């Protein structure tokens, strides 16, 4: 069964530095970090102390609210440092990797097991972290049953890793993961694909939706909204397509293999292409060996340019990303930047901005805000890039004045911060939309749960 989804509202931001479709093994990094902040709203309880030796797949910490929910090490090695922030918050757990990797053996999983068994297995093996839920865009509660599970197999964000390419040989793992997940929901597993050749197309136990149109056609939030929007009291789960591979491999072989093919992209990268690396891997060696200037003024982003995280050169690939983007910083003034005609930046207006002339042109954008922060003024522009059946400006304002009833009525249960990445990108008032939504969701999570 398949259904086509075509969206018209949106915006494809075409950037210079798209990854060429060749995969290399990244020079193996010795250092890996797991940052609990990747797991939003989870309070970690540390198991591995400094000096502990761990195998790949061994528990580093668990969820304070649910001891069964483990978070595991991506590699085998020694825990060398626990970095702490204010109030002894755990910032990062650093692991120095062994030369020879050894894995915890969780055992080949019996695929005919029932839902409870599957849940238990995923929780214990660290794979639960890959399952997120909406409302609130946090790691799924283990005792919940979702009405459906959504997976986006089409990456439409700027410079995103092409999933058809990175998952090409992983059909068996994908199928295993999808079959297992399908048992955890009362409803269906919905997968969106860009083309029917995708390795994610036509998997058993899932419904394939072919999506087309500009970004955010590949966002899972768009898929949910078009297929089966979330109502009050309902829960859906989402899983990133590349993480299905890790789940699948665990089920098939018993190994937690944190390997992931990532796109290394952006205009500051001399030879952008794909690399095989692992979750938590330090990015310094990879980026500097591949043509990013060492003393250059660049921004390194774990994730895409719209919703990724800024990381330092000695930072690491975060738990959910399959892209490292490097773009120039824009910390310079521009003479009469507010009124001169602009040809080298993207804009949805035509106010002496000429990106409408040449929709296929690729741009080299930097991190300048192109203007100062202001109150909301312009109306009607967000709607042009926002395909969900929600009033974006109204819901943002509801979040800002913290009216829980209104947030709920306007559809807060359906959204995640990344859904507001495009409206944030085009915002004339330079408002931090994703932060506003994140804080709104956190408030709801705290007050309503």
């Amino acid at each position: 069964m398949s259904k086509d989804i075509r969206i018209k509202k949106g915006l494809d931001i075409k950037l210079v530095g798209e990854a060429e479709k060749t995969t290399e093994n990244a020079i193996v990094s010795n250092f890996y970090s797991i940052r609990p902040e990747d797991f939003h709203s989870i309070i970690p309880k540390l198991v591995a102390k400094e000096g502990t030796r761990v195998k790949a797949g061994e528990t580093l910490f668990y969820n304070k609210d649910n001891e069964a929910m483990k978070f595991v090490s991506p590699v085998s090695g020694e825990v060398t440092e626990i970095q702490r922030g204010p109030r002894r918050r755990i910032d990062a757990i650093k692991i120095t990797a062994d030369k020879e990797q050894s894995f915890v053996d969780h055992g080949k999983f019996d695929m005919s097991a029932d839902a409870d068994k599957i849940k238990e297995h995923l929780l214990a093996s660290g794979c639960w972290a890959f399952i997120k839920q909406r409302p609130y865009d946090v790691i799924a509660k283990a005792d919940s049953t979702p009405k459906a599970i959504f997976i986006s197999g089409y990456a439409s964000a700027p410079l995103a890793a092409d999933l058809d390419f990175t998952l090409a040989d992983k059909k068996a793992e994908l199928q295993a993961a999808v079959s297992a997940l399908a048992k955890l929901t009362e409803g269906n597993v919905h997968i969106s694909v860009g083309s029917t050749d995708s390795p994610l197309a036509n998997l058993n136990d899932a419904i394939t939706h072919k999506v087309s149109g500009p970004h955010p056609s590949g966002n899972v939030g768009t898929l949910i909204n078009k297929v089966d929007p979330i109502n009050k009291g309902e829960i859906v789960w989402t899983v990133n397509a590349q993480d299905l591979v890790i789940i699948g491999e665990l089920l098939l072989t018993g190994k937690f293999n944190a390997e992931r093919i990532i796109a290394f992209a952006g205009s500051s990268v001399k030879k952008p292409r794909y690399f095989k690396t692992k979750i938590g891997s330090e990015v310094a060696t990879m980026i500097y060996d591949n043509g990013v200037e060492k003393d250059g003024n660049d921004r390194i982003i774990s994730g895409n340019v719209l919703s990724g995280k800024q990381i330092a050169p000695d930072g690491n690939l975060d738990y959910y990303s399959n892209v490292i983007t490097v773009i120039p910083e824009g910390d310079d003034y521009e003479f009469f930047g507010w009124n001169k005609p602009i040809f080298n930046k993207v804009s949805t207006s035509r106010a002496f901005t000429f990106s409408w002339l040449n929709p296929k042109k690729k741009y080299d954008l930097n991190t300048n805000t192109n203007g100062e922060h202001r109150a909301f003024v312009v109306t009607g522009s967000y709607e042009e890039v926002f395909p969900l059946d929600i009033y974006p400006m109204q819901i943002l304002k509801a979040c800002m004045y913290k009216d829980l009833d209104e947030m709920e009525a306007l559809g807060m249960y359906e959204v995640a911060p990344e859904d507001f990445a495009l409206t944030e990108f085009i915002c004339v008032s330079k408002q931090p939309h994703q932060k506003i939504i994140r804080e709104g969701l956190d408030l709801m999570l705290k007050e309503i749960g």
Partner: protein
Amino acid sequence: MGLKQNLHNFKVKNKDKKWLPGFNALFTFLYTPNETTHGGTHIKAADDLKRTMNTVILALVPCLIFGMFNAGYQHYVAQGLIDSADGFLGASFWTWDNLVIGLWKVLPLVVVSYGVGLAVEFVFAIIKGHEVEEGYLVTGMLVPLIVPVDIPLWMLAVAVIFGVVIGKEVFGGTGMNILNPALTIRAFLFFAYPTWMSGDKVWVHGAVERDAAIAAGENLDAFSGETLLGYYAKSGQELTVAGTDTVTTYGDRAADLYSYADMFWGIIPGSVGETSKFLIIIGALFLIFTKIGSWRIMLSTVIGALVMGLIFNGVVDAGWIGESSKFYGLMSVPFWQHLIIGSILFGAVYMATDPVTASQTNKGKWIYGFLIGFISIMIRVFNPAYPEGVFLAILLMNVFAPTIDHYVVQGNVKKRMKRLKAKVA
């Protein structure tokens, strides 16, 4: 880059000073700041609020320039020194003499409007410690275009202070105001100094002075500064043409003086910048093309005005109202002519579309615009003492815009509730 570096160092050195927003306003006028993104999207689109506002100002410039020439032209025509403009491109319109009057009378309006308004903005920015916002850039340009040319500058200054403080700053500045600041300024003038804002003298430079001179006993011909709406409002009444013995009616006199082409091209008396329908339409197309102005509001306002005009025409055709009625004159104006007399188009394009005070939802914009057009013509016809209702209609709808939005958004909320109910049932 010497200048850039020096300004940057100056800013860094004085970053704790209270007056820094004042400096920043000038600095960011020269240079887009060096701010980079933090959290959220790492890249941003090219447009900022300055660019948006600047685009609107550019769309207004033709109206301002035309207004200057028209000020001089109307002044000389009323004195009988020029016969006729011979159309929009006519030789006697775009003359140096006309422009000199315009520069002399209109530029001070612009200077006072910007000077006083921006001063208020700077003071508030420094008191409240935020950056100087760009909202006034457009307001300051609109104000000189919507007042009579002879308005005393001190009145304008008082009105601007009132409009910016009460109309905007008390609500929290640009983006927070309920009423359109430019129209708040005009409303203040209108109700505080009605003799300078309406009547048959104020619309042409010199008419008021001439009246005063005649009253003082000088032997001069009075000249009229009446707008077309003034003529139409009194269309049945008798009128002796100044300087002659000809007795006619106001309606016939208007037809003698001004052709439809004059109305369309804007060679008629009126507020400084609102007369040329041609240039307003050019401005509207520019705003729609650049996606800065809302075509929904512009179009729906025009539709609203036409519908009200048609209704009035229907009333006249049905014979429900006689020629003796004081409303007959304006009611019997063919519906489409309402668009080229008065300032409905200027209001629709530059005033109703102010995104802060208009409806913010796309559906709401249709309703908001339609009602502005509808009510404008209603006020125009039923209030012949002050025969223009556009600014009142827009201010009224500014107040109702949040209500319109509320019901539009409720539609979306109800849909969500229905979906939930269908699930539960």
